């Protein structure tokens, strides 16, 4: 069963998601892509749309697809059986409990365990999806995770346009070009002083480098 699911996951991204991202959305790199070649690594990105995860996964080559794990809220993605199967096996999420629910499992430890086994995590430091093209304040989860795994490189990525293509709470897909900007990887070890501010500055710089119209 495990291999069937892996094959389905591969097919889903190779046959459906990659072509959609390439042709219907049309990804535009604003600079040379800076991406991990192998795990452990963490991609951190702004979050406006369900498409964010799809685009980030499709940025990575298919031969490391089995290592890619988007960190996602268990209560949202595991709420019914089909969605749970799809989220766990096809998207390959690492389900975590949001704060205050179940104290026995520590979400940061869950992530750290996955990183120890060489996984590439996709982490949205803003928490849940925000309004299109606007970044909300980062939560402290990213700092805690980086602190726990100080050698693992974090790759900040900023995406523009997906919040217009498929915003939160809307099911209608309207194509817009999606622009992606990459930043040099950072580790907690090298940036421990004011790490939170450092991450924030990185995103602010990335956001400024994309000069495209936002929604009115």
């Amino acid at each position, binding site marked *: 069963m495990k291999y069937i699911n892996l094959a389905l996951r591969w097919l889903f991204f190779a046959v459906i998601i990659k072509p959609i991202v390439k042709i219907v959305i*049309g990804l*535009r790199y604003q600079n040379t892509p800076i991406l991990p070649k192998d795990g452990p690594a963490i991609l951190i990105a702004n979050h406006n749309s369900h498409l964010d995860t799809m685009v980030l996964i499709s940025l990575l080559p298919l031969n490391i697809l089995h290592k890619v794990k988007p960190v996602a809220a268990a209560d949202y993605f595991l709420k019914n059986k089909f969605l749970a199967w799809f989220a766990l096996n096809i998207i390959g999420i690492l389900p975590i409990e949001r704060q205050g629910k179940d104290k026995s499992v520590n979400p940061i430890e869950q992530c750290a365990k996955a990183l120890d086994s060489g996984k590439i995590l996709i982490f949205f430091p803003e928490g849940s999806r925000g309004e*299109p093209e606007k970044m909300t304040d980062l939560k402290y989860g990213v700092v805690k995770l980086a602190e726990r795994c100080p050698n693992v490189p974090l790759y900040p990525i900023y995406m523009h*346009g997906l919040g*217009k293509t498929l*915003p939160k709470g*809307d099911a*209608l897909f*309207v*194509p*817009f*070009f999606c622009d992606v900007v990459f930043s040099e990887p950072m580790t907690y070890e090298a940036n421990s002083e004011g790490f939170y501010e450092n991450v924030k500055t990185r995103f602010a710089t990335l956001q400024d480098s994309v*000069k*495209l*119209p*936002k*929604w*009115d």
Partner: protein
Amino acid sequence: MLFDFESMRAVTQVFVFLLAGLSLATVIGWVLSLTNKQKDYTELKQRINSWWIMIGIFGLALVMGPLVTVLLFAMLSFIALKEYFSMTPTRLVDRKVLFWAYLTIPLQYYWIATGWYGMFIIFIPVYAFLFIPFRMVLAGETKNYLRAVGNIHWGLMLTVFTLSHLAYLVMLPSEGEYQSLTMSGDGAALLLYLVMLTQLNDVAQYVWGKILGTTPIAPTISPNKTREGLIGGVITTGVLAMILAGLLTPMIWWQGLLVGLGIGIAGFIGDVSLSAIKRDIGIKDSGQLIPGHGGILDRLDSLTFTAPLFFHVMRYFYF
């Protein structure tokens, strides 16, 4: 074989000539970058490489027949409209309206593939242009309403209506008979004539501007465009149009000359009209899809004016 090289002899000959010209440009690019190491010729080389790909795709579509050509232009319209909506300001409340705007593309090209001229010619300027403001009124947001209507209308005009005339060219009947979807006819020659002259006109205006250009013609919109470049380009295009008229079109030499001069002027207007949009928004290129050229609109801008004008001149006088 979809493409009858025997009856399409003129198209094949002109195409071979075009490829020879591009080969020459490629060699010149190599020689320049080898002899003059101080200057960076990356952009020139990128431009030429992109020309190979664009001419390759265009040639392949012509060989595969009208249906493939129509599908190619439908795809180009889609990318161009997406580029337009991605660079211009749009309202969040208009998401559904934009969706309808995209839906006009398959419909418009369906009318073309079925040869339904009456629908093709009124669908965008009547039905789409009336439906879009109606759908916007339903959304109920009046802030920036007029700007949003104007924005979407001009986007459909530029990227769907005008460009679809290129596709309808290949559907023009050959010798009074209806055009088949699988076999290229006289329309393919007209399409090649128009696209080639419009693109060469761009290059000629650029080159003449580089050599002789001193007097800016539209300094507030496009500071690099000069009167000398425009005149040199228009004359070059006119002469080429005159030479090729007998081969590719039903026109005789002086008619070809007049049409060529018209293509030169209309191409210039199309170019600066897109420049005005980009300047208004504050960007340099409409995108980065074609290395060395910019976005797809940067390449198609001149055709947005030459295509409908050329089409209707041809249709009025010859079909």
